[in-house]
């Protein structure tokens, strides 16, 4: 077999690549433009909230502040007016916290038990109820709003924060239950069976066997709920009174219902403050957030 002569000339090694090839320019260029579209509003928010009003009126929303002032932030937090109250967003913040923390805990507790039940303890009609629940996730909330109002009025919780907590638990049930059900179904059946063989009952298995290994899904559920409930507006505006407005409702009032001169910097500060909590959760949880959303989104 005649071997081929090694010609010193001729192509060898990797293909010559230019870093600035047309392909790279197109890819990074497009991504850069897209990134600007997404990042710009945040930048504008921050920048606007740190300017004084005279500077804003000069007209360029994209320019960084010439003189940084935190006054808009102070005003937004402590002095902005909603209706009769002029103690700023701090009131709404407290309300949101009072709404979110219990809602998250209760809705996740209930949904996880639901998911556990559906995954391991079949009883007649269980699947039918579950289907109704899931269908309920697609139905526009509007159609169940007024009946919910009536129910809350009957049990005396209409306008109270506890009423809103109940609402969030009820309407968060479908997606969360699905999430937990899928998770518990994916766990090996042997775990459950071993528990039964050992004589453990419904609640024992839940607390001693299932919970300890479910940390990932609980974290995902928490991220979903914290951001979802904190950002909610519709339920907030229907089921609360001015005293008990969550932050989102108050924010909208501050910005959109003000007569007279619009203080854009205060508005943007207020907007930023409202967005900070879910943004913080997002930046901290990073990849988990993505997985949580994807998990919640991959429905049957």
């Amino acid at each position, binding site marked *: 077999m005649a071997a081929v002569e090694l010609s010193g000339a001729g192509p060898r090694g990797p293909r010559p690549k230019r870093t600035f090839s047309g392909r790279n320019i197109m890819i990074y260029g497009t991504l850069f433009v897209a990134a600007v579209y997404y990042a710009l509003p945040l930048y504008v928010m921050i920048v606007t909230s740190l300017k004084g009003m005279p500077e804003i009126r000069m007209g360029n929303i994209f320019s960084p502040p010439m003189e940084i002032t935190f006054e808009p932030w102070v005003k937004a937090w402590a002095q902005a007016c909603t209706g009769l109250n002029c103690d700023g967003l701090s009131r709404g913040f407290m309300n949101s916290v009072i709404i979110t923390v219990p809602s998250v805990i209760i809705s996740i507790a209930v949904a996880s038990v639901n998911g556990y039940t559906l995954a391991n303890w079949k009883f007649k009609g269980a699947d039918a109820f579950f289907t109704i629940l899931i269908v*309920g996730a697609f139905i526009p909330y509007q159609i169940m709003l007024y009946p919910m109002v009536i129910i809350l009025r009957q049990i005396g919780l209409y306008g109270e924060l506890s009423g809103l907590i109940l609402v969030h638990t009820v309407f968060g049930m479908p997606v969360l239950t699905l999430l937990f059900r899928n998770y518990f179904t994916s766990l090996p059946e042997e775990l459950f069976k071993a528990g039964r063989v050992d004589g453990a009952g419904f609640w024992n298995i839940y607390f001693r066997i299932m919970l300890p290994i479910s940390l990932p899904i609980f974290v995902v559920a928490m991220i979903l709920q914290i951001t979802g409930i904190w950002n909610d507006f519709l339920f907030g505006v229907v089921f609360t009174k001015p005293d008990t407005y969550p932050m989102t409702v108050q924010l909208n009032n501050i910005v959109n219902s003000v007569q007279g001169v619009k203080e854009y910097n205060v508005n943007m500060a207020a907007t930023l403050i409202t967005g900070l909590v879910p943004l913080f959760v997002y930046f901290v949880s990073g990849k988990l957030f993505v997985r949580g959303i994807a998990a919640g989104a991959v429905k049957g």
Partner: protein
Amino acid sequence: MSSVNARPKSAVFKNLSAKIAAVPMILTAMVVFLGGTIWTIVYSFTNSKLLPRLNFVGFDQFERLWSSARWITSVENLAIYGALSLVFSLVVGFLLAVLMDQKIRFENTLRTIFLYPFALSFIVTGLVWQWLLNPELGLQNIVRSLGFTNFTFDPLYDANIVIYGVLIAGLWQGTGLIMVLMLAGLRGIDEEIWRAARVDGIPTWKTYVFIIIPMLRPVFITTLVLIGAGIIKVYDLIVAQTGGGPGGASEVPAKYVYDFMFGAQNLGQGFAASTMMLITVIIIIIPWAFMEFSQRRSR
């Protein structure tokens, strides 16, 4: 509940703990979801004003609904917003995912940037874009100061294009998620398919069109359902960004429902409008559910 007795207990007591634990779910499903929906539908045939009254008036509310200019505008707006949202979300989301899949640097940073709007409330989104689209101080002003003095883009005051202003804001918030889902789908495609296509001499773009996208059908469908479910409910964004204006030009059904139910003290209209919303959802969901479940059975 372990039982040592050989005698079977009555069916009700089997799995008693489970049934008790499921009570919240059962109550919610039956009372709120099923019961509430039926209640609203029934009362949409009444002429309730401030309080619900069982005074049946047939299709009166619905006739009034469909002859109301405001409702017609709402529906039109929803249709335009919905269709464009769907198309652009899918296209932009998919294209961004394709770009992100090219083994680039800064992937994590870029993903964080694309996705963070999703963590924000619609109210925040609406307010920010309201500010950005402010004609005197916002985008229009900037472009004009760059020399294009005739540039006009004030969706907030132009009834014809206000829905597009809302669209820009909505896309800004939602496409990050679509991109993430598409990227996950792309990453799930076997590397060897790409190699086989390359050996076959198939150009990259054709590989995407003829091979990859058909393989991503499940992801596209999931995304479609997600976007669709979100579109019907659009309310917060409108309230924050435009308040329904200018002059009712950016009304949407969800806002119509709220305004009549809690604002104008016309419960009947509110009920009728929400019933219409439900019917729309059913019309869209049923074909999809049909497709999904009949496919399952044939597999």
